[in-house]
């Protein structure tokens, strides 16, 4: 099992937005997708996932409706709104800039000793 790592403050929202950007998706699938893509590094508990989803919904970055999925279950599917898409773009760009900068600094000073 890969080592789990705590998400920096505020990044969960960005990750959720990124996953939802692929198309309508329900909460369980979001958690699965995050875990899968991150190779088990990112594991989001229900207690963090759902408040985050609802927060994004309140901020109108996400919108949701109830649909019957392929397995026949009634699930709440989340989609990006227009402003959610904008937000994702901005935050992703700034995050990439930041991580690039951080790794530059870390490499320049010779990496962790």
């Amino acid at each position, binding site marked *: 099992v890969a080592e789990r790592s705590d998400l920096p403050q505020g990044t969960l929202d960005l990750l959720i937005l990124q996953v939802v950007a692929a198309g309508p998706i*329900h909460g369980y699938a979001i958690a699965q997708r995050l875990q899968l893509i991150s190779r088990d590094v990112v594991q989001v508990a229900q207690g963090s996932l759902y*408040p985050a989803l609802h*927060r994004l919904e309140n901020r109108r970055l996400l919108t949701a409706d109830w649909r019957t999925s392929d397995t026949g279950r009634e699930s709440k599917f989340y989609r990006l709104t227009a402003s959610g898409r904008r937000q994702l773009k901005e935050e992703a760009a700034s995050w990439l800039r930041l991580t690039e900068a951080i790794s530059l600094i870390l490499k320049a000073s010779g990496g962790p000793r």
Partner: protein
Amino acid sequence: MTWWRRWFCDRALERELDAELRDHVEREVAAGVRAGQSEAELRRQVRLTSGGFDQIKEACRDVRRPRVLADLVTDCRSAGRILMKDRWFAAGAVITLALALGAANITFITEYATRLRDLPFERANRVAIVRTVDGRGREGGVSYPDFEDWRLAARVFDGRAAAFAPGAISLGRDGALPEQFDGLYVSADTFAVLGVKPVLGRDFSAADNLAGAEAVAIIASNIWKTRYGASRDVVGRTVLVNGTTPATIIGVMPDGFRFIDFTDVWLPISQLPASTLQRRDARALLMIARLPDGADLDRVRAELSPVAANLAVTYPETNKDVRPVVSSLEAAYNGGLTDSLPLLTAGLILLIASANLANLLLARGTARSREIAIRAAIGATRWRIVRQLLIESLLLGLVAWLLAVGGSWLTLKASSSQVDTVLPYWRLKMDGRLLAMLAAVALLTTTLFGLAPAFHAARVGTAAGLKDGGRVSSGANTRRWTLALLVGQFALTLALLTGAGLATRTFYRLYAVDLNVRTADAVTTFVRLPSRTYATSGQRVTFHQQLRDRLLASPGITASTVASVPPFTPAGRRQLIAVDGRPVSDPPADVGTVVVDPAYFHTVTRGLVLGQPFSELHGTSGHQAVIVNQRFADLYLGAGSPLGRHLTLRPPNSPSAPPVDATIIGISPDIRQAYEGEAVVPVVYLPFRAEPPAGVTLIVRGSGAAGTTVAAVRNAANAIDPDLALGAVNTLDALRARSRLASIGTVSQYAKLGGLALVLSVVGLYSAMAYAVRRRTQEIAIRTALGAGAAQVRWLFLRTGACVIAGGVATGVPASLALGRMLHASVVHADAWDPATLIAVSAILVGAALAASIVPVDRATRLAPSAALRSE
């Protein structure tokens, strides 16, 4: 998700949340089962890792809306529910507080309006008003020659001073029926000194003020609207003034400007008779001047005094010892009519209501200590409990405040039209600062005492609260508080009610006198016969005889009379020099005089007490007769028949005028002329024929509506003289109401406040004591179960009642004596000390206290102990 859905669709959102979380778990389990794990084990795992469903839900709810607000909504709901459940308590508390707040509000507003109102003049506190006082301390106005001398000599005025004199002014021949108005004769600078300009046309000029100038007039906005239909071309129109002088209207004053009191028409002072303007002893004018920056009233006094002293030397006949009296215009309008007593009373009532409320809340708090202990035990934080109680208290206070505001708004609406006619520039209106202050009082009282149970719970601790709370008896501490509050309330009420009782008794004594006047169906109007067309007494007498004959011939008119002044208005003055040749006092006493015609007494009252009314002969030479009222007879005639006694009278302020002897031919019942000074002034009635005044009040009694009677009077008067104007029409009822409002407003207000205090205290005393007893129902049951007799139990509680009564009487009686002295000092009609009132009020309060300790105890002792023990 829209915000309103977030706030108001709680149930749907909860369902969705539950479904969503459940869906997640089901999917996780389904995935695990597909991978070959056991379902039961999976569910256990999921529950372990997810950290509990309810916590997740809470976290999601916090996202939905801030927790503080969510709790607030819940607390408000539960506060509403708790108050509704205890609705007798809530109603009692709210009504008590609302009544007291409303009374305080109205009282403060009235006081504010009469004492502190803003005048609609530019910086009214910078306008000085000058009057005079003579060597005998009598106040008077300023004569025109004195005014001119002062104006020119006092450098502080810079020549800019004005003088004016009131007088009835009639308008006619302007397309409407001739009508009499309140007028003011003003010097040219009057409006300039006040800083007010006409909204239409022009101000008076110096030329208008010269003797012999063409007559001009400025009218008030109110008659511009009613009489001239607010037509703009009223400026330049000619009207017949006082039935004799054509005058041109040159201006209209702004809305609400009625200087000096209720003036409708202003004329230049040059229109006053030359004799008035030339005589130094005709002090009919008032003088005003605007103070320049940096000057104060003292400087005006300092500059006027030497001028007055010079005048006294130059004109000793008229000006000896006459000194100027200087005050600000604002001070002249404000104050004087009222005193601080109603304020004090309103404050005390607020105090009583607060004590009532405190008692109710404390008693209820004791009853709730168990509930609060339970709340604390199942996890409510102290802040949460305090907040719950706080919200309940605030809700109580808020509802009471809203009721008070609504109630006083209605009261003000009802009374302001009446008040408008009595005092100028009264504005009874709500004041935001006052309302805020009352809200603060309401909320402070309710929260301060409403939080008591929370403090109690904090002190006692949860376990003790659960064990003891609401069970056997209220805590000793609360009981001490309750007792102290009850005693304080008893004493306050006793003092207040004794005062109110005094005021009420005085009020009704005055009121009883008014029953002498038959006010129903009587219409009054002022008639002034112009001196140019009715120069002689004979002409005036003839006119009134004709008018009377015509009126009595009109259908529906049953009686008609004239008097120099109607009842309920101040009488004229004479000096009573001697009775039967013996001087009465030195200096001679002032008595009231009213000139009346023979029909007066059977029209206005039910005839004379003794003797004969005037005949048509009385007042002609050789038949000098007077009628006096009972008050006069009591004061000056002593024992023996008053009829046939001789009086020697002289007009006031004219020591040189020859005294007049007259014989008393009748005694009239007391008819109030004004509510000033003594309850009823001694009055001498003089026959109309002896000295018919130019202006008289016509009092007509008719069987029809007031309007019909007025129309009949108008027709009859104009049939004799088409240019004759009638003054403002009133009913005797209205005159009485108005004079009462102006002068004994304080007393009646005080009586009302006292009545309110009585109701509040009796209710408060009863409910607080009864509540205290009810709280001890279980204790009573235990005592009864252990063998205590009903009498013993009753005595136990009577002891508390006795404590309250003893303490209350011991502190209340001295307080009420002090208040009585204050009342006597500030309200002239009131007695200082009235044992009957004190005893009656004490009896009512003692009765209430006793009833409150006996009735509930009686009920409790009759209950079977087993039932009482079970009761919560």
